[in-house]
């Protein structure tokens, strides 16, 4: 009963205290697909993601009602860091829906204009001036937004002293950007300026975990939980607890200030750990992450060691010896790498998964058009129409075509003289997460599958291999589909069963693929390489050595009439890929999630007849 009453009270009081206009609410998720190109077009970094931000705490004067309701303590402001632009997940500031929408676009333009904030008050004004000058349409919107937002700012009559001076300065800066150069000091935070960008929160996040035990990502995490957060990401902070012993509370619980304070308590065994974890997370400003990654399900894995033969894929044959290029000595090391073809013999045949069916269907439709591209074949002994050129030639130079009577042309299917081998990087780095519920390998797997569906209907012969390596003694070359087998559920099963392997000895992978591709009788041979980073291995195969060897392998491929093309999701790819594949020999996909749909498109662009 108490709980019920509490709930009603909470609902009532928050509703009374709310200053939002729920009926005019605009959600970020609905607009983000437009905001992203908008951001890029105005000069924003192409790789950045549009994301929701969690509310930030402001030290503000709250009205009694708001204090009672416990609202308005935190507010959504817009900010960006190296990786993403963070917007409020929803805007309901204005009673007019159009204005709320315009606010998103305005902030996007500002984010593109102002990638780094040095001085919050000055930089924002300067960026606004810059936009107003160059984009007249946005200027109109800006003044409309200012006019709408000024009445929402604190009442000037109720302020006095420093606070009044500060508020006056802000309002002036909004009305006439550039007219105020410094912000008068006053206690507390100024009321949030929703038309401006804020600096990113100060807590830095380092990505590398200290833990030597690398735990496998929890596969069965309940995805439903993520929906509650609606795209708003929490700030995260790494806490260095690696040196400390398990914590013990030696002070009164009452003296704990907030939820966010770190409690040095190791509780991996606590029961029901995931009960409403996301609910608790919503209440936190900051999620403190442990550097020890032994959370919840700690599984011990001997990193990078070979799996036992029973659990491994089936090794086919004794392997092939391949050379490697040593750039320091400028010699080809003969028979340096042992390449082991592997076959996932325990992968069960599987159909296209439900989630990909729709898009696979569309791709099949689109690519089957390639199959039926009919053209006129000239100088045919039989055909539907006379080939006039051939006839006239027969009359003008009878000697040349004495015995031939090929005077017809026929409309027939064009055989595309093209075979393609897709070589996918299955190294350990593909195990990293790209978002809450997907890893790079998942995206690569989906991409391969959709690519195969598309190519299968195009009629072009194709093969798919994956590779990873552990030094030169074992370069694993996973057969997913070879040229001669038909594309069936067995191949689909193997593709769906791909898992991250070890390291990336790219040179060996390319050399073997060239050997396979060379045997194809087609006129054109395309080697598509799907990668997620630089070539590297745990021996000396890293840095320049790996790059040089890969480059050598690429050049050999070109000399043998094979066209290599690299598709990478590594955002730094522009730095080294031109050296490896040439200016037009690669493509960087900055939005990894789009790879599955982009890959077939890239293939079309690469090989399209027109």
């Amino acid at each position, binding site marked *: 009963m108490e709980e019920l009453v509490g709930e009603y009270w909470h609902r009532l009081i928050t509703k009374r205290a709310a200053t939002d206009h729920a009926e005019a609410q605009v959600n970020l998720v609905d607009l983000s697909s*437009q905001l992203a190109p908008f951001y890029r077009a105005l000069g924003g970094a192409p790789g950045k993601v549009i994301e929701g931000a969690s509310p930030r705490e402001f030290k503000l004067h709250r009205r009694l009602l708001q204090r009672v309701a416990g609202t308005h303590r935190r507010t959504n402001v817009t900010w960006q860091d190296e990786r993403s632009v963070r917007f409020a997940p929803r805007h309901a500031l204005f009673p007019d829906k159009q204005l709320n929408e315009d606010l998103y676009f305005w902030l996007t333009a500002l984010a593109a204009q102002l990638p780094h904030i040095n001085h919050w008050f000055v930089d924002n004004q300067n960026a606004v001036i810059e936009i107003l000058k*160059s984009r*007249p349409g946005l200027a109109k919107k800006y003044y409309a937004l200012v006019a709408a937002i000024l009445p929402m700012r604190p009442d000037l009559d109720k302020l006095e002293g420093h606070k009044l001076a500060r508020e006056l300065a802000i309002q002036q800066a909004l009305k006439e950007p550039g007219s105020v150069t410094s912000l008068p000091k006053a206690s507390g935070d100024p009321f949030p300026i929703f038309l401006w960008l804020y600096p990113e929160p100060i807590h830095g996040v380092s990505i590398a975990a200290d833990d030597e035990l690398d735990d496998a990502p929890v596969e069965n995490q309940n995805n439903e939980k993520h929906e509650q957060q609606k795209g708003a990401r929490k700030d995260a902070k790494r806490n260095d607890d690696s040196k400390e012993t398990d914590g013990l509370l030696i002070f009164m619980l009452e003296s704990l200030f907030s939820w966010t304070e770190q409690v040095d308590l190791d509780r991996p065994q606590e029961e029901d750990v995931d009960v409403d974890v996301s609910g608790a997370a919503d209440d936190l400003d900051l999620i403190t992450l442990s550097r020890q990654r032994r959370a919840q399900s700690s599984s011990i894995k001997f990193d990078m060691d070979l799996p036992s033969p029973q659990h491994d894929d089936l090794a086919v044959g004794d392997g092939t010896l391949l050379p490697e290029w040593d750039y320091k000595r400028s010699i080809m090391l003969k028979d340096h790498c042992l390449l082991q073809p592997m076959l996932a013999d325990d992968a069960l045949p599987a159909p296209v998964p439900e989630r990909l069916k729709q898009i696979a269907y569309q791709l099949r439709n689109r690519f089957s058009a390639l199959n039926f591209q009919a053209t006129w074949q000239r100088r045919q002994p039989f055909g539907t129409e006379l080939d006039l050129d051939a006839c006239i*030639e027969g*009359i003008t130079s009878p000697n040349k075509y004495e015995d031939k009577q090929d005077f017809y042309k026929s409309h027939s299917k064009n055989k595309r003289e093209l075979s393609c081998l897709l070589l996918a990087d299955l190294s350990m780095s593909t195990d990293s997460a790209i978002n809450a519920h997907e890893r790079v390998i998942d995206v690569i797997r989906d991409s391969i599958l959709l690519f195969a569906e598309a190519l299968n209907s195009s009629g072009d012969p194709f093969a798919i291999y994956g590779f990873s390596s552990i030094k030169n003694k074992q370069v694993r070359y996973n057969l997913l589909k070879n040229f001669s087998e038909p594309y069936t559920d067995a191949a689909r099963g193997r593709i769906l069963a791909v898992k991250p392997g070890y390291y990336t000895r790219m040179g060996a992978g390319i050399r073997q693929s060239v050997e396979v591709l060379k045997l194809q009788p087609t006129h054109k041979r395309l080697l598509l390489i799907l990668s997620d980073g630089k070539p590297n291995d745990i021996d000396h195969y890293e840095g320049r050595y790996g790059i040089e060897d890969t480059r050598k392998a690429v050049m050999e491929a070109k000399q043998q009439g094979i066209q290599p093309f690299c598709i990478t999701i590594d955002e730094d790819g522009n730095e080294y890929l031109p050296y490896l594949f040439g200016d037009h020999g690669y493509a960087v996909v900055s939005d990894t999630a789009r790879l599955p749909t982009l890959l077939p498109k890239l293939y079309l662009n690469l090989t399209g007849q027109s």
Partner: protein
Amino acid sequence: MTTTANNMNYLPQQNEVEIFSHAAENKLPVLIKGPTGCGKTRFVEYMANKLGREIFTVACHDDLTATDLVGRHLMNKDGTYWQDGPLTRAVREGGICYLDEVVEARKDTTVVLHPLSDHRRVLPIDRTGEEVIAHPDFMLVISYNPGYQNVMKGLKPSTRQRFVGMAFDYPSPEREVVIVCQESNIDKETAQKLVTLGGDLRRLKDHDLEEAASTRILIYTAMMINSGLEPKQACYACLAQALSDETETILAIERLIQIYF
């Protein structure tokens, strides 16, 4: 800045006029690379005017064979007779033979280009057995767009290195404003807006758009505006719809248009 030859305007991006003139003087063939609608064809037409040579333009397509360039036998009531193709005419009479998008043509076309593009400057016609020696004013110019990254198409290195090469790109914003103004007679302010919008759209290449907004498309938009169409509508029709088929991308482009018009 704009130079005019026979009522034809051309605003040089760099020193392309000089390079082309020298190549013409030395009877060397020229290769022009550049993205769609950046002014390749306009440049060649302008240079032909300037040098006072006739121009034979062939837009290459994937069914274009050597026969289409060289010529063929035709029939009339008296029997068959030989008809020169555009290339042969240029070789005989003197003039610029411009093969637009040459990589689209069939492979056998490059074979007839080889003897023409080195010191021999001859065109052997195997059907008639004739070997046409090129007129002193004959000049071969080819163009293509290297940005398509198509493995099926591309010039063979042995073909490419017979030519004097020039790379074109979209002109700088200041120059583009001048070009748009001149071509469409639109006022400078609108032209400036269009060019800035074009610059924004070019940043979307490779991410959201397959091809960048060309100078040509901006000129078309300006022409539509100049003839009285409401600017926003002109941009929707000429830019948003012409550049993409994806609904979301079109919506984003429309948003961009709204910040200028």
